[in-house]
């Protein structure tokens, strides 16, 4: 099991900036070093581990200490007079439980669980609504309905408390009646004591346990899975009719004046604040980013976008395993020295036989940029952060048609759910994970690790796979910068402008609107793009407006996806953007950006490309310099044994491939594990596998863009895995070098205007060429 884990506060820094590292280490002490990451592949057939130790003041021996993650989202309202001096009162909330039977779950609580002090409206062990009081001396008393609720259904939940008689009434009312299901009830009882007064914050979706070590938020317990909507606390023992008035916001003044708090979650959906609309203004915050912009109890289905009907999106969905910021204390820092050139680095921590890496990027000082830049796809790494492909979904092995292999981090993450999930995983309640952050140890964004999706051979995916590109750039002696796509998101085209050519990673799949527009505009303002992977520019994600390092997705409508969002939840809570596939969003999409778009996937073995007629077009001569006419391209490699594999893309005019694009070469002879992507299937028919289907292929693609720009796309995640083959001496390396050298040369591409070619399908493009 992993004994050292860690993360950094920043992912991209420039000379003069300071980056902090947070470390959990079970050893007494550890050695920390800053290294430059060049190659992270342990495969003996590959370049091996190559890293360069950088002499910095951060290197040294540090005392180890255990740091833990307190996962689980909740809402928190600071304690205050009105909440501390309740006499007779009523608490109510609409609840949509997703795991009602998991045990005690707090809904609305003014309850310090450590000393059992206060009161709480909860789901108890029966799966039904209950009201709990604690005397502050370790005793609790409960009045419970005692009837389990149905998962994924809305209920009205409430409790009233008479301070003089200590009489409690608890309500549980389903919004939908199922004739044979007994899930409605009103329980009345008398508790043995009044709830003890306390200074604990009011919490929703959790009990309060203690402050976190940093003291800014709380450690909770009894985390709730599901949605809460319209929580309120009102002075007095309310009748059911009065409760309904509070819920519907139609309370007369006399009742309204008794409101202690009524939180309207439809206000500031994109923020982490919650707003109390009572005159007390007991505003609060949500912690660990529960999902907002989700349908409320009153959603009619008529409106799909929360911005258009906020009043129907007054729910927040909480999860026991949400985690935004691990919140650890800082263990050491590094001020980036001026001498540190732009590149891919990591803080390496070692103790005994254990080791951890915390990667980061040093971008160049403004004005000191080189001609070539690798765009470190942190957005896509975040999407896959701490994925559980190997241990959660049973379909994984059918997708790979190879045995599941567990590396150390897989075993650790399966047991340590508090490290959070990826956008491919499901929460403990079975619903899809919409939000992923880098402010936690991301244990699959490391050198040396393997991942089952990465194909036979090196088995690399994302970060470590991309070191096949960095090791090649080093070996070929290119001088290059590294920046992250987060920098592109925040900086736009200005951060790209200095470069003659930018290179993507092997799988730049997740793009925000800012990123998409910046890269596209760059290619139309004279920039050159080398798209070095497969299935890029595919999903539209949102960055949070105010919280750094976190993205949200709703896998709307279709696409190759690990889960589907619920109806009415296709727009992100972070920004209100329509999420899902870029290709469904007007003149956007991978084919528009790079000439090619996701066409097929499989994860067993890779294959080669064969040259198409377009490769003999004079416009593409520079690409194939030194390559024979009949030469198979990339029939070797570290990822599945070939350059075409994992996820592959094709040209398709219908989806936006520029009509003058050249389809230079295409892969063939994929296994039947490779299947056409689901978004291309209108009817599901036999013959969609790699041995038969025309669309199961990757296309090498080149075209010129306005103002001297150009695009070259390899359309395969495995391409970079062939670059280092045979000590970088091979035809994949040759082609890549031909293109990179030409793209780095600012000489404009010769342009001659031709009549527009007739619309053609992807097959014709491959076998007859661009001008067919």
């Amino acid at each position, binding site marked *: 099991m992993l004994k050292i884990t860690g993360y950094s506060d920043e992912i991209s820094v420039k000379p003069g900036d300071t980056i902090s590292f947070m470390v959990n280490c079970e050893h007494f002490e550890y050695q920390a070093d800053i290294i430059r990451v060049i190659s992270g592949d342990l495969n003996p057939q590959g370049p091996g581990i190559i890293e360069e130790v950088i002499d910095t003041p951060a290197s040294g021996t540090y005392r180890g200490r255990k740091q833990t993650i307190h996962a689980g989202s909740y809402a928190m309202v600071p304690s205050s007079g009105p909440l501390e001096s309740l006499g007779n009162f009523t608490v109510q909330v609409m609840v949509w439980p997703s795991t009602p039977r998991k045990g005690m779950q707090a809904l609305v609580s003014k309850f310090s669980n450590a000393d059992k002090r206060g009161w709480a409206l909860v789901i108890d062990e029966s799966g039904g609504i209950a009201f709990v009081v604690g005397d502050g001396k370790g005793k609790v008393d409960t009045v419970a309905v005692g009837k389990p609720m149905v998962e994924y259904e809305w209920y009205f939940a409430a409790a009233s408390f008479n301070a003089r008689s200590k009489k409690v009434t608890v309500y549980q009312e389903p919004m939908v009646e199922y004739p044979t299901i007994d899930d409605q009830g009103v329980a009345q009882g008398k508790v043995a004591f009044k709830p003890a007064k306390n200074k604990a914050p009011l919490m929703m979706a959790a009990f309060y346990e203690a402050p976190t070590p940093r003291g800014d938020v709380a450690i909770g317990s009894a985390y709730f899975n599901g949605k809460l909507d319209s929580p309120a606390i009102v002075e007095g023992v309310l009748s059911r009719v009065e409760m309904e008035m509070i819920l519907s916001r139609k309370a007369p003044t006399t009742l309204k004046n008794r409101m202690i708090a009524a939180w309207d979650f439809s206000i500031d959906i994109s923020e982490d604040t919650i707003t109390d609309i009572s005159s007390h203004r007991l505003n609060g915050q949500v912690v660990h980013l529960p999902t907002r912009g989700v349908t409320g109890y009153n959603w009619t289905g008529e409106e799909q976008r929360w911005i258009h009907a906020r009043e129907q999106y007054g729910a927040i969905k909480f999860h026991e395993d949400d985690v935004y910021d691990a919140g650890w204390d800082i263990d050491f820092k590094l001020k980036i020295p001026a001498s540190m050139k732009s590149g891919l680095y990591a803080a390496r921590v070692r103790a005994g036989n254990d080791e951890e890496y915390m990667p980061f990027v040093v971008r160049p000082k403004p004005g000191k940029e080189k001609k070539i830049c690798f765009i470190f796809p942190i957005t896509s790494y975040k999407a896959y952060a701490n994925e559980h492909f190997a*241990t959660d979904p*049973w379909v994984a092995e059918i997708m790979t048609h*190879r045995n*599941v292999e567990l590396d150390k981090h897989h075993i650790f993450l399966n047991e340590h759910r508090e490290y959070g999930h990826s956008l491919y995983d499901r929460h403990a309640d079975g619903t899809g994970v919409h939000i992923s952050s880098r402010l936690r140890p991301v244990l699959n964004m490391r050198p040396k690790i393997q991942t089952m999706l990465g194909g036979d051979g090196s088995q690399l995916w994302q970060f470590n796979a991309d070191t096949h590109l960095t090791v090649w750039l080093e070996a070929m002696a290119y001088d290059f910068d590294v920046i992250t796509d987060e920098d592109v998101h925040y900086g736009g085209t200005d951060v790209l402008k200095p470069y003659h050519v930018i290179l993507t990673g092997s799988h730049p799949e997740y793009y925000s609107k800012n990123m998409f527009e910046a890269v596209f505009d760059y290619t139309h303002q004279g920039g050159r793009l080398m798209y070095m992977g497969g299935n890029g520019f595919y999903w539209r994600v949102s960055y949070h407006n105010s919280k750094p390092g976190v993205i949200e997705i709703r896998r709307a409508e279709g696409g190759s996806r690990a889960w589907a969002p619920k109806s009415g939840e296709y727009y992100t809570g972070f920004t209100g953007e329509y999420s899902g596939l870029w290709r469904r969003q007007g003149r956007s999409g991978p084919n528009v950006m790079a000439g090619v778009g996701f066409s097929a996937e499989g994860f067993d073995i890779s294959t080669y490309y064969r040259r198409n007629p377009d490769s003999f077009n004079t416009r593409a001569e520079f690409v194939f310099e030194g390559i024979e006419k009949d030469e198979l391209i990339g029939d070797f490699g570290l990822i599945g044994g070939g350059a075409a594999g994992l996820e592959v893309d094709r040209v398709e005019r219908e989806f936006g491939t520029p009509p003058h694009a050249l389809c230079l070469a295409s892969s063939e002879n994929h296994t039947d594990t490779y299947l056409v992507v689901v978004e291309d299937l209108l009817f599901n028919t036999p013959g969609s596998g790699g041995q038969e289907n025309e669309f199961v292929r990757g296309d090498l693609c080149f075209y010129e863009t306005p103002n001297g720009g150009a695009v070259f796309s390899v359309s395969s995640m495995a391409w970079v895995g062939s670059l280092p083959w045979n000590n970088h001496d091979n035809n994949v390396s040759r082609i890549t070098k031909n293109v990179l050298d030409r793209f780095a040369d600012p000489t404009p591409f010769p342009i001659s205007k031709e009549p527009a070619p007739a619309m053609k399908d992807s097959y014709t493009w491959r076998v007859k060429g661009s001008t067919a």
Partner: protein
Amino acid sequence: MTTMTRYQITDDDRKWIETFKEKPVGIHPPELIRLLNRMRGEPIDGKYCLIIDKPHEQWVVAEMQGRGLPPKLLNIRVKNRKDGEWEIFKLRWQRHTGNAL
């Protein structure tokens, strides 16, 4: 057992055993794919897998026990993935047919 396929493995499938043993990963005939879909589609609880013991050198066959639980190690070590495929294929054949290979 929850799996994607309802296909039941019978003695008729014996004819694909050698084909699989020779090339466990790669282009396969449709009937062997059907057999493997059944085997590889096991639910996570009890699914056979390989644990990387020494990267690219040694693996241990294990049985997963589900979400949140550690895998159960079996006393089978292999020196390459091809052997790992064969060891797990044998275990699955036994599980599905009741017969040892």
